[in-house]
């Protein structure tokens, strides 16, 4: 059963990554990164059980923490950048 869950999480990771590549807005990418991070948390938790090494849970906690802080950081500094170069706002993503 761990296998099924791990496979599902992997598929979700791939789909989230596709959204992170596709964009189109930066917010979509941030969302995708957030989802990807949560899925990595799940994957490592499941893998810990799959390999019979539940000590991996310490790492899982670091992942969850870093995921949150990165998303906040992206939002924060995106706001700075948007402020300091409002001229660039008109430039669309390629």
């Amino acid at each position, binding site marked *: *059963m*761990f296998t*099924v*869950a791990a*496979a*599902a*999480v992997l*598929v*979700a*990771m791939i*789909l*989230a990554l*596709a*959204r992170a590549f*596709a964009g*189109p*807005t930066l*917010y*979509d990418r*941030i*969302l*995708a990164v*957030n*989802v990807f991070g*949560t*899925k990595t*948390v*799940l994957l490592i*938790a*499941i893998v810990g*059980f799959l390999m019979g090494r*539940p000590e991996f*849970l*310490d790492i*899982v*906690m670091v992942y*969850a*923490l870093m*995921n*949150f802080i990165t*998303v*906040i950081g992206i*939002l924060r500094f*995106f*706001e700075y950048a*948007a402020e300091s170069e409002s001229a660039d706002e008109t430039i*669309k993503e390629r």
Partner: protein
Amino acid sequence: MTILTTYISWTFLVLGGFLCISGAVGLLRFPDFFTRMHAASVTDTLATALIILGLLLQTDAWMVQVKLVMVLVFVLLTSPTASHALAKAALHGGLKPQLKIARGSNKAGQQSEAEA
């Protein structure tokens, strides 16, 4: 571990896995940012909770259980918060929800973004 808890745990794991995939499909296929965010964040929280509950039932070591609960609490706190902050930032950043349904086209999302 009894048979019953095993079955419950399997159900949780499979349901969680299903929610993972369905949420990710929504993230990929929905037309604009806010619908994608809805699909992703709602399933994200529930899928995480289900899978961690499923894992919780699989172990007898209390240290592992405590850590799993801590991860669960952490994710339940941070994931909706991050989604909330992101949605708010997107709204302030000039991204408008797409209110009309553009049938069969994925381009509508990009158009609403071009207006922003």
